[in-house]
């Protein structure tokens, strides 16, 4: 069929469809699913409202000084432990791919040991370090009694941060491996030394790959800090427990703590979105979706 004959087709030809009415596809399955979810949700809301929950306690304790102090300590621990974890993760990952057999053996050993035991156990080991090393320091120069140094805060930062470092190093390593070898070569041919190349060229590109899983780990760490309650660190769950031991309002205080965890995690998720956007600069896929 050529164009001329198309143009002379009568309007009721089977190829003339512009005047027909468009009927959208019905998503029956989706509607049923949505209905089921709404029913379940309504049931849940009812259970909470008629259950043994005094909502006034939840409201009153939401901003109680002990809870807010616990929240502050939770955030502080998250920042400190995750900071230590990221620094260790970067250092260990670089050691692992350095090509120096001594450094990469140390890195492999570190990952093996600190991924091998539960974080809770590691935290308790640090807290009880005095049993193995009663004093710390360089004999003659300075010395501390271990029990004085190893406060709940320090023990928790070390326990959580060091074990986190083992996981984060694998995330960093996968990021480093994701950068094309041509980038390493281009950096070398303009005379960059190893550290400058990593800092200026490789890590910024690896960040694109690393941010989502590290974001995941930060969010995990917010909740992992609750482990520190077992060594008497006053984070939010610990303080909530102290309160409900006194007033027996267990569920109410757990809900208070849940609220704050959820809020913190939500804020972090939003922050992650912007960090991802920053490190995606120059990349096509991110730009076209902005």
């Amino acid at each position, binding site marked *: 069929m050529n164009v001329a004959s198309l143009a002379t087709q009568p309007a009721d030809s089977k190829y003339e469809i512009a005047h027909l009415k468009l009927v959208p596809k019905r998503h029956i399955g989706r509607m049923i699913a949505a209905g089921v979810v709404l029913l379940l949700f309504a049931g849940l809301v009812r259970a909470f409202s008629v259950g043994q929950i005094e909502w006034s306690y939840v409201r009153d304790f939401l901003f109680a000084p002990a809870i807010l102090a616990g929240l502050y300590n939770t955030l502080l621990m998250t920042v400190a432990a995750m900071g230590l974890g990221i620094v260790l993760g970067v250092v260990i990952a670089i050691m692992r791919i350095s090509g120096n057999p001594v450094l990469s053996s140390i890195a492999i050993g570190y990952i093996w040991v600190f991924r091998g035991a539960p974080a809770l156990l590691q935290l308790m080991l640090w807290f009880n370090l005095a049993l193995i090393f009663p004093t710390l320091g360089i004999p003659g120069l300075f010395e501390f009694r271990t029990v004085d140094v190893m406060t709940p805060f320090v023990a928790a930062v070390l326990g959580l941060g060091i074990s986190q470092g083992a996981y984060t190093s694998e995330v960093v390593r996968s990021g480093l491996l994701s950068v094309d070898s041509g*980038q390493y070569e*281009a950096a070398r*041919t303009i005379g*960059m030394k190893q550290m*400058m190349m990593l800092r200026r060229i490789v890590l910024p*590109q690896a960040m694109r790959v690393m941010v989502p899983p590290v974001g995941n780990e930060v969010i995990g760490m917010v909740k992992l800090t609750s482990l520190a309650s077992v060594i008497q660190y006053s984070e939010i769950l610990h303080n909530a427990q102290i309160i409900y031991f006194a007033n027996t309002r267990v569920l109410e205080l757990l809900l208070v703590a849940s609220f704050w965890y959820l809020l913190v995690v939500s804020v972090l998720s939003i922050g992650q979105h912007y960090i991802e956007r920053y490190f995606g600069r*120059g990349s*096509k896929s991110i*730009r076209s979706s902005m």
Partner: protein
Amino acid sequence: MNQDILVKAIDVTKNYGTFRALDKVSLEVARGEVSCIIGPSGSGKSTLLRCINLLERMDSGAIWVKDELIGYRRDGNNLHEISDAEISRQRQRIGMVFQRFNLFPHKTALENIIEGPVQVLGEPVKEARDRASALLERVGLADKANHYPSELSGGQQQRVAIARAMGMRPDLILFDEPTSALDPELVSEVLDVMRDLAASGMTMIVVTHELGFARNVANTVTFMETGKVVETGLASEVLSTPKSARTAEFIKAVRS
């Protein structure tokens, strides 16, 4: 050594396991000269370039650039492997342009060019930016200074890569098949920039399959096969009246 010889390679040999990628390759390039290396795939052309700027370590032989031994320091009768810092310093004087451009994707065209001068040579940012702008102008991309590599065509990316190499004010630029990854209609814009660079007196070693470029721009042509230099000489002679039958065969195959 002759004052005018900028690059001198003697009996360079490189093994990958039991495979010999370079077998006693010797090469001389005078200052200001354009030297083309041609040869079939796997003949060791890239490996030779990579030995010159220490991206690979050779197993035996020696390379001098500007009368400086590459990768080693001579101390009486001993040769010491130089430190990583020394290697970086030697590489600063040797530019390289890759087949796949290898621009830094998180930096704009201008940032790609000033990265080396500012970070490695310690040039003031203002001065580096001015110089980079002039270089972009020279490769015909003044209007693309703030574009990321992903926003540039292959030919434009390769021209930025050439400007990046020039930004380091090298004694020598190595080109490893700079037009092989380009669509045919983009090849000439890159070759034009290289021709301009050659005319300005830059010493260049160019691995290429563009025999037209070799004929018009190169002073010398070297034909390599299976890790060996088969024939080397003036461009006009090697390309028009090759002495070796293998060279003649290769030239005929590339042309058709």
